[in-house]
């Protein structure tokens, strides 16, 4: 598998349910970031988790990071129709500064009203 792969590729849930997306990566990292992209639009930064952190919260978002398994998960609680979008994880390569991001293939989330 490639650096930064999400699963599932697509997820359809009912409004109010929770959505969980997973990301796996291969190399050492300093940070892992999650982004949202509405169809054909820009990338919106959601949350950054550092390699020495295990869990982070921001509003309805909860991100976990397991560096031993090289995996992360994004949980969106109490989903809304407006959460419909593609979600990407992005990892840096562990360089000391200004490192590029490697993006995963993304999870397409559809929230049904």
């Amino acid at each position, binding site marked *: 598998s490639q650096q930064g792969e999400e699963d599932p590729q697509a997820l359809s849930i009912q409004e109010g349910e929770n959505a969980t997306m997973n990301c796996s990566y291969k190399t050492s990292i*300093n940070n892992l970031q999650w982004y949202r992209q509405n169809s054909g639009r820009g990338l919106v*930064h959601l949350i*950054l988790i550092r390699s020495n952190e295990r869990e982070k919260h921001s509003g309805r978002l909860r991100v976990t990071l397991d560096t031993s398994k090289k995996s992360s998960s994004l949980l969106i609680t109490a989903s809304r129709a407006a959460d419909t979008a593609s979600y990407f994880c992005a990892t840096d390569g562990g360089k000391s*500064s200004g*490192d590029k*991001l490697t*993006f995963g293939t993304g999870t397409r989330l559809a929230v049904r009203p």
Partner: protein
Amino acid sequence: EPEVTQTPSHQVTQMGQEVILRCVPISNHLYFYWYRQILGQKVEFLVSFYNNEISEKSEIFDDQFSVERPDGSNFTLKIRSTKLEDSAMYFCASTGGAFGLGEQYFGPGTRLTVT
């Protein structure tokens, strides 16, 4: 809230023409990036820029591509002779912090269509 801006939002050009995509990164950021996303595919890194020079570039970033920070605010990507396969969404990003290890914020993108 500060944000990365990009112009134009959509650019249509003929094969072989030169295009310049413009970006204004967040004002106190020091590291700048260009990425692209071909329709339906992953976001791919093109180039990073720090202290007025390229820090790293990908295999995609060949001699047809160049970047410039012509003044204190703009950051440009030039494609000298566009090909059909250059059609993609191009994103500019920037990050601040002492070592560039913070969040990378992306602009809204420029959709480049090469005909």
